[in-house]
């Protein structure tokens, strides 16, 4: 009964639920013959594994439907139209209708396609996206696996997405698919570097690759209202900016949605996919978007910590969910606002702007780490001043350089078309 009244118990609700299910299983064993009792520990460990996997699949596949709905409704509002409003109340059942449509659609595989690779590609992509969720701390007591090198695990899981996009493009036996896949790969590889470079300062300052320790490092508040999140430092702000932009590109979201640019490449590596395989690609893209937002929250936005001391009474997983929905809304907002980049602009932006800025950011983080031991008067102002000046100067110089280069060749030359 204390469950509803006591804040601590609400925080421990996931643990209680886990214990409850395990208790139910151990009670079930009392009704079984004694010869089966030897299997109880094995069954219990199996059940506890399922208790990690099932909620991840259940919650995030539901969130996928919610985000699709949010995106369609939100884009509709931003483009001055209603959005889906026919299926269910306010069109809320549209994702279910879409899912059923995808399920019952005919699965067409081109005659010359490599059938096995064509089938494996979407499965591998979904696997890679789902596996990344296992190391993210969603709440104080909600951490699926506490891995010591969880961050490396997360990025290793992302490696599957590159391979599966190539497999999809190559196995379709279609030149648009192959070209689209190669463009997508070039984009993913180019933006993976700034993505990882932007996380290096966090690892340096938290001295750990363990997501739960990175979150613990961001605990505490200055004057009860300013949280000690990494995003509230100069290197953290630039790091988060780089991370967010790179994550837009990594998940093929607008303005970096060239791999699926319908007007240029039909649909890139998705051209020859239909039915449920297409739905799997679609789902994997959204799951990747959710997981990359979740890791962004863990690294820069304080994980499950509340934004100020007064709100700590709200359970941690609500805060994590709120931040996640906010970041996903940012993804949707950007899609409605920014036009798509050209391929050369996309590559130039990664190599000539984001990577140099990421490298400078690591240097600034190293300076920040070394200057933590300063204790003379006004050291905080000096520290902030130097870091902001270096990062701001570098940002302006790189932006100017990039701008000059693009204006110098402003007269675009077309080699194959006039």
């Amino acid at each position: 009964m204390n469950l509803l009244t006591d804040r601590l118990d609400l925080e421990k609700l996931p643990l209680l639920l886990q214990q409850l299910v395990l208790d139910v299983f151990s009670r079930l064993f009392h009704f079984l013959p004694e010869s089966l009792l030897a299997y109880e520990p094995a069954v219990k460990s199996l059940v506890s594994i399922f208790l990690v996997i099932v909620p991840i699949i259940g919650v995030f596949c539901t969130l996928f439907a919610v985000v699709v709905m949010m995106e369609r409704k939100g884009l509709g509002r931003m483009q001055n139209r209603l959005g889906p409003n026919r299926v269910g109340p306010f069109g809320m059942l549209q994702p279910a209708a879409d899912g059923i449509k995808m399920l019952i659609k005919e699965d067409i595989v081109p005659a010359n396609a490599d059938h096995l690779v064509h089938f494996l590609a979407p499965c591998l992509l979904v696997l890679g996206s789902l596996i990344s969720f296992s190391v993210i701390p969603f709440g104080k007591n909600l951490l699926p696996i506490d891995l010591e090198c969880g961050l490396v695990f997360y990025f290793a899981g992302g490696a599957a997405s590159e391979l599966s996009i190539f497999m999809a493009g190559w196995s379709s036996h279609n030149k648009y698919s192959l070209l689209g896949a190669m463009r997508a790969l070039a984009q993913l590889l180019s933006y993976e570097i700034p993505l990882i470079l932007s996380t290096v300062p966090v690892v340096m300052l938290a001295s750990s690759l363990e997501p739960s320790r990175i979150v613990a490092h961001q605990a505490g508040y200055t004057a009860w209202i300013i949280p000690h999140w990494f995003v509230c430092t100069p290197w953290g702000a630039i790091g988060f900016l780089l991370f967010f932009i790179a994550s837009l590109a990594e998940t093929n979201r607008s303005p970096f949605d060239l791999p699926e640019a319908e007007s240029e490449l039909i649909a890139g590596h998705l051209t020859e996919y239909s039915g449920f395989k297409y739905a799997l690609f679609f789902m994997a893209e959204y799951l990747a978007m959710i997981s990359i937002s979740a890791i962004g929250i863990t690294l820069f936005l304080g994980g499950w910590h509340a934004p100020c001391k007064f709100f700590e009474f709200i359970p941690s997983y609500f805060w994590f969910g709120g931040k996640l929905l906010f970041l996903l809304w940012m993804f949707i907002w950007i899609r409605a606002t920014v036009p798509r980049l050209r391929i050369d602009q996309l590559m130039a932006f990664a190599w000539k702007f984001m990577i140099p800025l990421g490298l400078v950011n690591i240097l600034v983080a190293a300076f920040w780490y070394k200057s933590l031991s300063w204790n003379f008067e006004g050291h905080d102002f000096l520290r902030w001043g130097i870091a902001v000046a270096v990062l701001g100067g570098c940002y302006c110089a790189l932006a100017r350089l990039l701008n000059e280069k693009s204006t110098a060749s402003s007269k675009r030359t077309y080699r194959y078309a006039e």
Partner: protein
Amino acid sequence: MDFWSFIVLGVISFVLLTSASAAMSLSNLIHCALCLVLSFVCIACIYLWLGVEFLGFVQVLVYVGAVSILVVFTILLTRRGFEGEIIDFSGTVLLGPVLILPVLLTLWWAVGSLPTPPDHIKTPVAHVAQIGIELGGNESGGGHYILPMLGVGILLTAALIGGASMASSKRRKEEKWN
């Protein structure tokens, strides 16, 4: 080593050897590359089986994520078609077993000549933090490999900056060409 652990190692080794031989013998180059990726994954699994998580994940990140993409890009950019071709076997293939035999014998001798560890010594548990301290050092010591670390760091950063500058210099060449 208990029974199940042995079975797991057996399965991983079987998949590893099968995929590695498939990577050498399949006629379609892309299939070869994909089999090579599978063998990289199996090597990562062996690292995980040995309990060295960090190495296993880095193996996936570097080999599956980057090296395999490099391989498939190279295949696609250097061949006119992406159809498979039958690779003829030449007489030199018979040299293979002759060369493998001394290698295997040397390995057998090397492994056999190692002193057997006493039973009471446990496998050392290497935490990522310990590896980091050993490589880079901290206030209390370590840092025996700081110079090679710095060397590798500078080399990789130079390669990255080189890549970025090549990207910008290519543009100028193209402009001249136009």
